[in-house]
């Protein structure tokens, strides 16, 4: 039989079938491979995106507690502030006011003693599995105050976002004891030659401040005593010890602050931490006062036991005049006292109360 030539180039059927199956399988596997790379992304390039997201969360969102409230910076019903309750940080005053930040939230956010870098901040504002390092800072524009910041020092390369914001300042009221004309007009100086105990009351009328009839509609300008800080200063109290002719009787009496009580017309609590003569005290017994008393309700003040949304909240300071024993002095004197006249109205009138102002600031988030 003739031998077939060496270059017949015939491949067997078995080989064709086998090779076809191999090729098909090979092409299929090849098309899966790009999907394998998805889980192995490099983390370096999304720093800017993470910084932007954190910027939005901080600046445009009011934050959230586990009870779904947005005032995560104060402890309303607990004795101590519990940071585990905070689900997410957010510095905005409310959802409807993006880019307007609350001073209390800012102070609480930048407080190193409450929250730790990086764990607490990562879980509540950065998010994500990768342990990013970051630096968040806030600086008032046009003010020499130094910037507040948390986090590490910036390295060479990082993702970055800058947001401009307005920060809502605290409202406060000052009752100036040296302005006797004003005090007499408002009938805040009362009593007679025998009165030793004087009660001065300040009224926070929530119906006017936060109620539906309030003239201030926007949360960015409202005074919300239940959720925000406020301060009441009584200055130059020694100059309000006067007799019926408005002649000073300072040297006849020493002032002592017995008590500060806050009531919502059903409950009453005592405020133990006034600032007397610029020294913060924790008072359980009557304390002497030379000139100034300040009541500062800030994020650390204990608001427990009172319904701060009640229609009327009254803060009453109970003073006692102690005779010094000087000759020619009467038993008691007129003083800052509105027990039988109207309380001081802590309201939206800029003549009485310094209203919250919005100040420019810049927030920067750097992630690496």
């Amino acid at each position: 039989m003739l031998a077939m030539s060496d270059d017949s180039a015939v491949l067997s059927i078995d080989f064709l079938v086998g090779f076809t199956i191999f090729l098909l399988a090979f092409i299929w596997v090849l098309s899966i491979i790009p999907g394998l790379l998805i889980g192995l992304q490099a983390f370096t390039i999304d720093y800017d995106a993470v910084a932007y997201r954190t910027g939005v969360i901080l600046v445009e969102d009011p934050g959230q507690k586990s009870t779904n409230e947005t005032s995560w910076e104060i402890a309303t019903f607990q004795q101590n502030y519990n940071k585990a309750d905070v689900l997410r940080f957010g510095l905005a005053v409310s959802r409807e006011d993006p880019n307007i930040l609350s001073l209390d939230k800012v102070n609480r956010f930048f407080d190193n003693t409450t929250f730790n870098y990086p764990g607490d901040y990562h879980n509540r504002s950065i998010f994500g599995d990768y342990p990013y390092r970051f630096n968040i800072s806030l600086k008032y524009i046009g003010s020499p105050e130094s910037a507040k910041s948390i986090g590490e020092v910036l390295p060479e390369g990082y993702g970055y976002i800058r947001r401009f914001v307005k920060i809502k300042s605290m409202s406060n009221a000052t009752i100036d004891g040296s302005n006797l004309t004003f005090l007499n007009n408002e009938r805040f100086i009362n009593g007679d030659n025998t009165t030793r105990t004087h009660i001065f009351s300040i009224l926070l009328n929530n119906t006017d401040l936060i109620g539906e009839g309030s003239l201030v509609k926007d949360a960015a300008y409202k005074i919300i005593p239940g959720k925000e800080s406020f301060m009441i200063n009584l200055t130059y109290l020694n100059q309000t010890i006067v007799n019926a002719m408005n002649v000073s009787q300072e040297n006849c009496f020493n002032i002592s602050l017995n008590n500060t009580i806050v009531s919502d017309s059903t409950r009453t609590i005592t405020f133990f931490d006034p600032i007397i003569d610029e020294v913060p005290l924790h008072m359980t017994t009557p304390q002497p006062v030379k000139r100034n008393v300040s009541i500062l309700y800030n994020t650390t003040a204990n608001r427990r036991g009172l319904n701060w949304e009640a229609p009327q909240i009254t803060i009453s300071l109970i003073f006692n005049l102690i005779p010094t024993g000087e000759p020619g002095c009467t038993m008691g004197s007129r003083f800052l006292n509105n027990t039988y006249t109207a309380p001081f109205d802590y309201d939206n009138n800029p003549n009485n109360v310094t209203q919250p102002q919005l100040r420019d600031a810049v927030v920067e988030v750097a992630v690496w």
Partner: protein
Amino acid sequence: MRSDGGQLYTIEGFAAALIMISTAYLVVNATSVYTAGDTHINDMQLETLGTDALTVMGTPMNTTEYDTANSTLRMILEAPDRDVMFRTKFLELVNSSGTGPKQDIQFVANYTCRIDNSDSTIPPLQPLSSSSRSLTGGEHPVRVTKWVIVNTPCGNETTRDRAVLVEVLLWRD
């Protein structure tokens, strides 16, 4: 019949060649070169900056200003020297930074208002603040806008409360 034992080696060679060539192809095609501009991140940062700055300028400072619908931006637009005032205030905001990098941001600002007797015609842009140097066309500007209610004439129109749109083109040098 000739021996076909060598076919196995041939197949092996084919398969190996295929795998190697496809690997090389995947590898070379997987890496891509993105320039900084392709990612648009700088554009996003600039746009956020601009809108934030205009928002901060356009927010009333206290409840009194809120009630009268007044704000820094409105006062600037109603002032006769709005060019200089806008430039000063905007640059003060936009170039301020806390711990971050210093930036050099340039801008051109205009505003648009509507003529009363026509519902749809809008006059050309009224200049608000010109740039410190002329545009060369090589900048990549980002446009940010803000609505303001002002009480001014628009061109030759009467002075009335009107809504105008302030537009700012921002770029980095």
